[in-house]
């Protein structure tokens, strides 16, 4: 399952003592892959820090749910605060890392997720604040859409959720770093070849020649 692979790979980015906010979907799933011995403090933008897993049935608290209104529990040492305090925390640069899904990303660090003109409308919600505020931004998405087209673009075509904000891209095929100049291929998923990445990636990979030489 590409989604599980991506979530598992995100897991490696968690460092001990890190404060992180995980978007809905694959990013949330990555919390299951936080390495043994690594303590991560999860933030929920609706106003909680250090929340834990879902409660058992019958034990849910109507006033404890995450930003997707799914029931959560609070861990010892957790804190609750109003939504302004929560976004002050996010926008103020206090969260070490956020992982967000995307419809597409590009080599300039742009990310699009909130609108497909004429087709789909959702509103940017808290994603923009996370993209502009968090110290490290990871975009997590499948490498290609259902037609096999690259989601890793030279230039996003969809309305942006954030401009020049992405630091790292994790897909089911590869891991990239985003620099001001372009993207750098850092890692291939197991079984993926350099040729495949070249075929499936629209963005310019600035170190692709090094990978080609290594493969030879």
């Amino acid at each position, binding site marked *: 399952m590409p989604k599980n692979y991506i979530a598992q790979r995100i897991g490696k980015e968690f460092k001990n003592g890190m404060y992180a906010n995980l978007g809905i979907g694959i990013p949330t799933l990555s919390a299951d892959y936080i390495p043994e011995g690594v303590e991560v403090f999860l933030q929920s*933008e609706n*106003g909680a820090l250090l929340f834990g897993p*879902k409660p058992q049935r019958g034990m849910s608290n109507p006033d404890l*749910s995450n930003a997707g209104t799914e029931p959560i529990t609070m861990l010892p040492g957790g804190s609750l605060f109003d939504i*302004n305090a929560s976004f002050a925390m996010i926008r103020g640069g206090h969260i070490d890392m956020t992982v967000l899904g995307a419809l597409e990303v590009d080599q300039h660090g742009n990310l699009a997720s909130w*609108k497909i003109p004429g087709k789909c409308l*959702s509103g940017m919600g*808290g994603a923009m604040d996370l993209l502009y505020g968090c110290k490290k931004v990871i975009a997590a998405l499948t490498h290609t859409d259902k037609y096999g087209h690259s989601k890793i673009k030279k230039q996003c075509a969809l309305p942006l959720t954030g401009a020049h904000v992405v630091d790292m891209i994790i897909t089911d095929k590869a891991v990239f770093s985003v620099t001001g100049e372009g993207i750098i291929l850092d890692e291939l998923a197991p079984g993926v070849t350099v040729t495949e990445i070249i075929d499936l990636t629209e963005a310019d990979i600035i170190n692709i020649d090094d990978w080609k030489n290594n493969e030879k």
Partner: protein
Amino acid sequence: MTKQIRPEEAVKMIKNGSTVMIGGFLGAAVPLLMIDQLAESDIKEITLITIGAGYRGGGVDIGKLILNRQIKKIICSHVGTDPNLISQIVNNEIEMDLSPMGTFVERVRAGGAGLGAVVTPVGLGTEVEKMAEKITIDGNDFLLHKPIRAEIAIVKAYRADSLGNLQYSGIYSSNPVMATAADLVIAEVDELVEIGDILPEQVGTPGIYVDYIVPGHSSKKRQEIYEALWIATNKL
């Protein structure tokens, strides 16, 4: 002084065309009974100020007001959870004023705190630039957004005393900030307690902000409602 009234009386303060702020977030920490009263009323053409749409799928909590076509305009940061709302927006039946969530809640805070604007970098280089004014401070660009206020705010808290002091429990969400930014504030609470039962440090919204207290569902009843909703929607 804060008055305790029944939800049926409280809803009469809302008129056709009123601007109404409703606390909470995607169905959580929302004033369920007051929303039901609104949904059962004939009140139309409401300008609704809310962080986002109602519980995912629509038709629950503020989603009822959408189904009933009682909303003329929505000022919010997210509509993606309610397909009915999206279709009414796409069909130009509901006008939308959108801002990023952190900006939205600061706009409400500015409205309540007497500030003239919100100045934030969030959204630079995106369509949000069209929703704000771009200004430059010391060579850095920012977006300037205007404050948001409502005629009536309906918020949800855990407990209240007869001075209108509100205590929150769990996720406070947008309730504390919305209680500061309306001409008239109605608070729906699980429980009414004696003056002094809520300690000074436990007060989340001081009584100065609250005009009316409405008894809502009990905490026990709310637990049953949310547990059932979560089970029915495969979230528990």
